[in-house]
């Protein structure tokens, strides 16, 4: 039984093009699913839809988001907010804008535990210290008293990871958590996320454009193109033999650090044309379906 199940989720810009095309995917408890695709493929959009933070300019046109068996989209807004807050968390992309510059680190981690989840202040403070130790911050007491601008990007990303795990969520959406960091820090942060996820048994929806990251962190994988899931398989199967030509080309395009002379292999135009045609065909059948219903 999966903790998160998305069924036929379609999202479009209001009076504009489709952003997600009947996306379905599952994340079992304690499992990590990678969402891969190029910029604009809609991978972040899925995470935002799950957490109820879609921008006001887009709307969900159909589908279900089942969290622990209950469809969030059929619940009243307040109730779905409560459920998301109680069992989900976000690790955002840019650590520089993800902490409020006006508040010290401590309250940013603890206030939501106290205000929303009803913890005691002492319990929340102790929890924050433990978490910062767990994400390998050397001097938690000092960091908790600091303002975000006093800390480095890698440090802030560690704090965001600690903060995401604070209330022991069942599901975490990590939206390209390493994209804004430099490569050496990236590696530490990835190891940290993977370690925390394994220890806490949290389900993780990992949005990334980096297949190298996927191979290190994820067990399941969805490849998106233009809001359409073109491949859904286990990471082991995918790296052994990708089924869809687009995802095969994507895999071939990943630079090999072991062989720097191999050069770059961009996704061939023919493959792009084919996958575009597939998306167009999908839209046509959808339009026909709507017509026969009407």
């Amino acid at each position, binding site marked *: 039984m999966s903790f998160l199940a998305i069924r036929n989720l379609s999202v479009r810009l209001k009076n504009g093009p489709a952003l997600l095309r009947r996306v379905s995917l599952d994340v079992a408890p304690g499992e990590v699913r990678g969402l891969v695709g190029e910029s604009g493929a809609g991978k972040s959009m899925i995470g*935002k839809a799950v*957490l*109820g*933070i879609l921008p*006001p300019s887009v709307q969900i046109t159909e589908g279900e988001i089942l969290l622990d068996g209950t469809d969030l989209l059929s619940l009243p807004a307040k109730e779905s*907010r*409560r459920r*998301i*807050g*109680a069992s*989900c*968390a*976000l690790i*955002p*992309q*840019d650590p520089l*804008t*993800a*902490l*409020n*510059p*006006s*508040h010290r680190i401590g309250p*940013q981690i603890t*206030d*939501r535990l106290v*205000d*929303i989840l009803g913890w005691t202040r002492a319990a929340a403070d102790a929890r924050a210290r433990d978490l910062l130790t767990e994400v390998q911050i050397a001097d938690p007491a000092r960091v908790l008293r600091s*303002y975000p*601008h006093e800390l480095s990007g890698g440090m802030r990303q560690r704090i965001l990871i600690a*903060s995401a795990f604070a209330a022991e969520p069942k599901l975490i959406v990590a939206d390209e958590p390493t994209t804004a960091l430099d490569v050496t820090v990236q590696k530490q942060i990835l190891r940290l996320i993977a370690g925390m996820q394994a220890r806490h048994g949290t389900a993780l929806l990992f949005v990334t454009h980096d297949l190298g990251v996927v191979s290190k962190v994820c067990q399941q994988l969805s490849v998106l193109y233009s809001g359409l899931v073109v491949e859904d398989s286990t990471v082991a199967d995918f790296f052994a033999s990708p089924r869809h030509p687009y995802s095969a080309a994507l895999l071939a395009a990943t630079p090999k650090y072991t062989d720097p002379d191999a050069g770059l292999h961009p996704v061939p135009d023919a493959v792009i044309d084919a996958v575009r045609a597939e998306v167009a065909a999908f839209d046509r059948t959808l339009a026909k379906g709507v017509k026969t219903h009407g």
Partner: protein
Amino acid sequence: MLRRRAGLRLWLSALWLAALVLAALLAPWISPRDPLTQDLFLARLPPFWVAGTEPGYLLGTDSLGRDVLSRILHGARVALLVALVAGGITCLIGATFGLLAGFLRGWVDMVISRLIDIWMAFPPVLFSILLIAVLGPSLTSIIIAIVVIDWTRFARVVRAEAMAQGAMDYVASARVAGRGRIGTMLREILPNVLPTVVVLLTLEMGIAVIVEAILSFVNLSISTDDPTWGGMISEGRTSIYQAWWVLVFPLIALFLTVLAFSQLGEGLKDRFDPVLR
């Protein structure tokens, strides 16, 4: 070096404003003369450093023989009252509208933004003269006129700032955690627009002092007997060739006060903003 200069600016402007507040509070006791007493035999006395002037009138007298220094000290009361009350109310109303429009977006933003657009299409000076003509000239009508005209300044700037802050990831995180819209607005957005609001507020206080002076200048302020800086400038204008001091001293007071307000705002922003601090 830069740090010290910013500090100096803050302290100098705070010093001037503090002196002004003291002068306004203590005006009845520290004024050398009664600001309303006329003495036509002592009309247009030059300031103290000019040879042959009557001692005891430091900054001279106007064409009715009233003491200029005493009138400036009493005029500070009106100027400061207008600055604080009109500036404060304008800020409160404008910033509230701006925050609601910028963070809640949707129909709230639509209504408030259209209101601002329509409001700003009125010519402000005519609008204020009309308002005072309807309400009758008094200190209260001046304050109301300033609030009614200037709230849009706050609303527009705060709206843009709240929108920019609303797009930040920390707002998304707060929403995911289950914080309500109003809670998010007050806790996450408000502290980050506050430095902007403080700067605008001090600028607005300076503007309020100028507007009061302008309205006094066109005789739409409080009764012409009561000393106001604008009224003094207006009276001094008629005798500028015979007695320049009647015009120049209130003008200097006005200039320094407006400058002090704006510099105070800049200085406070440097202190207030956690990123600049």
